[in-house]
């Protein structure tokens, strides 16, 4: 595995019975890049993410995340990644502070460290009043920001973001991307899935999955040139059409 | 939803009627006959013939017999002492010992009564040895003839069925209504309704009337099952039953609405209902007689809607009571229903 590759996937196959969810995937993600993982619903994205997060065992292939093997060192992988789901899954009946303390706690962050980082976070996001509010009383945009802060609170090497912007307005989405850029500047790698094609353009590199295979991979500019498209939306449509013709 | 509504009455009436029985039947009893006389033998066979008891015999009362009680192999041990027949005929005071496992106090009381009745009815035929006093004075007695009205065979199922139907109807009214409304709240569809031009009362009526009809249907089905499978009598008029059920359903649906006003999640509604339901059921005379409760408890029952309906449904079905016989209950339920509905609707408008 090369020095700067934080995720390395070779010939990954995952089968559920007769159904092949991931058919021979090959890709790698470099350190401190934003990697967009795109694909229609049912294309096999979720399965791949679950394998990368150590939730599922691959059927065959080589998978390496943050320097650990996805077959044998799943618990080490878990310790070194962060994860944010599309539901911004926070506990509604706990306060912002309690949510942060809980998630940091289960990642084994020391109490004193939690305290200092919490203060930093409060300063950065200007949530002096908000931190003692119950999550259920927060607007969606804030839930999203806090869910992200929680996912990177223990300073993981990679953070997996599963459709982190669904249901949020464009301005809030923009602000959210600023948070991602900031995290990447701190050396965190972001692995992100999204439905918004304009967001795909914010990524350093993207891959597009169709029917369990990776159909296209590269920087947004490369892909647009390759498919002779105006924007990523076009790329996506053209890929889908190609599929139909076959 | 539909299967729940129509399968529930079947399952509940069938299982509950069979499970919820406080009737004495096939109770294991051990007899220790130390007398071995004609009378003691007839007593034993009398017990063997009784449908209430399963008899087994032990030759003496010792630790082993005690062990039978301890391990619940037998519920009671009856000991017939030596010289029983002799003493009896000579007019000497004699005593039968009856040891009962009394952890279930009510059951123990019943066992004691049945054993008493069995023995006394047999011994009343015993002729004492002739002696002076007996020749002079003929024995005097009062014959008490018992008539068990409304349930000649003392069929416990006829007692339980109305109770179970009461629970059933109340479940529809309180449980289904409030869970349905709270679900609407949880899913946010109530917001959707609030923006439509439909009036509040129209919405509430639209929500409640289906449950009202379902409740009537379910009670109908339940009574039908009772009549067909358990021989449940229906001595009153259909109209009386209908009028009272309509009234009671209004009360219980209003209570369901009231609970939904105060609960924000189905779980909360569920626990609140569970709490009140338990109190209503236990105090309402469904399993145990209200008559044996202390005065204050009977007073508390005045705010227990199930208490009224319980009385009503038993009286109408088993005794053939009319609205005039139950005029107090009629007005109580009417007042209760109106009050509950007004408060619930008022609270509902305030909350939403």
């Amino acid at each position, binding site marked *: 595995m090369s020095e700067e590759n934080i995720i390395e996937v070779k010939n990954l196959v995952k089968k559920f019975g007769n159904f092949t969810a991931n058919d021979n995937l090959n890709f790698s993600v470099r350190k401190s890049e934003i990697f967009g993982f795109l694909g229609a619903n049912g294309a096999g994205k979720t399965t791949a993410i679950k394998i990368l997060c150590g939730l599922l065992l691959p059927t065959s292939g080589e998978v390496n995340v943050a320097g650990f093997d996805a077959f044998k060192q799943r618990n080490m992988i878990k310790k070194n990644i962060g994860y944010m789901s599309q539901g911004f899954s926070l506990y509604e009946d706990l306060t912002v502070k309690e949510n942060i303390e809980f998630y940091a706690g289960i990642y084994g962050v020391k109490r004193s460290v939690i305290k200092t980082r919490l203060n930093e976070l409060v300063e950065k996001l200007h949530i002096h009043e908000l931190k003692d509010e119950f999550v259920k009383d927060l607007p969606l945009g804030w839930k999203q920001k806090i869910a992200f802060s929680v996912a990177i609170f223990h300073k993981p090497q990679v953070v997996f973001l599963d459709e982190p912007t669904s249901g949020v307005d464009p301005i809030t989405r923009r602000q959210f991307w600023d948070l991602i850029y900031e995290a990447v500047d701190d050396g965190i790698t972001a692995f992100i899935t999204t439905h918004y094609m304009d967001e795909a353009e914010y990524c350093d590199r993207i891959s597009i999955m169709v029917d369990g295979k990776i159909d296209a991979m590269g920087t947004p500019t490369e892909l647009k040139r390759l498919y002779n498209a105006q924007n990523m939306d076009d790329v996506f449509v053209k890929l889908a059409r190609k599929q139909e013709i076959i | 939803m539909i299967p729940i509504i129509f399968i529930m009455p079947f399952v509940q009436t069938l299982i509950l009627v069979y499970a919820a029985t406080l009737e004495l039947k096939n109770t294991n009893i051990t007899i220790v006959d130390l007398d071995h006389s004609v009378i003691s033998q007839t007593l034993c066979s009398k017990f063997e013939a009784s449908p209430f008891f399963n008899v087994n015999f032990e030759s003496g009362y010792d630790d082993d017999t005690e062990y039978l009680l301890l391990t619940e192999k037998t519920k009671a041990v009856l000991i017939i002492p030596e010289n029983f027949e002799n003493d009896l005929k000579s007019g000497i005071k004699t005593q039968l010992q009856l040891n009962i496992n009394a952890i279930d106090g009510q059951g123990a009381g019943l066992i004691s009564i049945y054993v008493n009745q069995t023995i006394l009815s047999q011994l009343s035929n015993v002729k004492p040895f002739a002696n002076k006093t007996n020749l002079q004075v003929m024995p*005097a007695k009062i*014959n008490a*003839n018992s008539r068990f009205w409304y349930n000649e065979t003392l069929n416990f199922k006829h007692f339980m069925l109305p109770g179970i139907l009461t629970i059933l109807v109340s479940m529809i009214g309180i449980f289904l209504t409030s869970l349905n409304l709270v679900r609407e709240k949880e899913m946010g569809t109530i917001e959707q309704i609030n923006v439509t031009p439909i009036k509040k009362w129209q919405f509430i009526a639209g929500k409640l009337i289906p449950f009202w009809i379902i409740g009537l249907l379910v009670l109908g089905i339940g009574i039908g099952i009772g009549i067909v499978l358990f021989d449940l009598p229906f001595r009153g008029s259909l109209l009386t039953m209908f009028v009272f059920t309509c009234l009671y359903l209004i009360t219980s649906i209003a209570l369901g609405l009231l609970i939904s006003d105060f609960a924000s999640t189905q779980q*909360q509604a569920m626990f609140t209902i569970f709490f009140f339901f338990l109190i209503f059921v236990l105090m309402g005379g469904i399993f145990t007689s209200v008559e044996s409760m202390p005065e204050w408890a009977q007073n508390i029952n005045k705010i227990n809607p199930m208490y009224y309906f319980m009385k009503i449904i038993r009286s109408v079905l088993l005794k053939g009571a009319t609205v005039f016989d139950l005029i107090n209950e009629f007005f109580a339920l009417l007042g209760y229903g109106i009050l509950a509905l007004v408060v619930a609707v008022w609270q509902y408008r305030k909350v939403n």
Partner: protein
Amino acid sequence: MNRFLAFLTKEFLHIFRDVRTMMILFLIPVFQILIFGYVIKNEVRDAKVGVLDFSGDVMTAQIVSKLDAANDIEIVDYYKNYSEIESAFKANKIKAAIVFEPNFAATFVKEREANLQIILDASDPNLANLLNSYISAISANYANEQKASQAVINVSIEPRMLYNENLVSAYMFVPGTMALILMVITALMSSISIVREKEIGTMEILLVSPLKPIQIILGKLAPYAILSIVNAISIIIIGNFVFGVPILGSPIVLLILSFIFILMALSLGLLISNIAKTQQVAMFISMFGLLLPTMLLSGFIFPIENMPVALQYFSYIVPAKYFLIALKSVMLKGLGFAFIWKELLVLLGMTSLFIGISVKKFKIRLD
């Protein structure tokens, strides 16, 4: 360990935040015990009885006043004919009526025998039976007194109420309430709380975290185990201090027994949370699959031996049945392990079965 502590803290926060559920959980056992203890009585008190006296002589008046003086009976009204009795029954004004034949006293003196009739409202059969035996006993006594010299037969039946001399109903319901509450808190609450995590999507995040699945499960279950132990102990204490329900057996055996039952209930909660996808499903499974059988088919209120054979067989798979048998043996009869090992084994067997199924289902989901 610190990770696990963080998890536990969160679980307790959830529980204490939900004040309403919390209150009800602690109020239910208290109310249940109080109602059973103070309201539900085994004896008849002041049952209302009416009189139809076709004779109206000294003797009938004496019998009536004797009845009225008895604790169990209260004479409330006099009637002129049978139809008045009937309407009194229909309006629920009386539970029984006594009818004296014409010329009662005269017949008694002349024939040494007179007839009275006891009419009972048998829509409540057990009450009718009790009243019948009270009233007949009182009238028979009266007849004997009239003849003072000697009774025909001189026999008495001496009942000895073992394990519960005063027929206190608390002896039945304190163990029963314990079984019910342990079941509600442990199985129902824990399954709901696990399913809730699935529903709101946090379970996914927990699984991605370095917490091991076993830690997650233990963290979810432990708080409810603690709560139910607190609840169980308070029920025993209230039962003991307020209603005098004894603890004859060893408290250690009692604790071990309760602990095994709680373990069983937890494994059941785990199984339910594995099957149910939504909280509502979990609630319905718990209500109809756990609470009703625990109340009806465990011997809590209704004796199992009176039920039809099919239900008796069904009761063998109701865990609370075994708990109640063992609990009553230890608390009320003072028995030890020698008498309850079978019940303990059954409970442990059920526990391992439930855990086995849960683990298997969990594994299938992971692959």
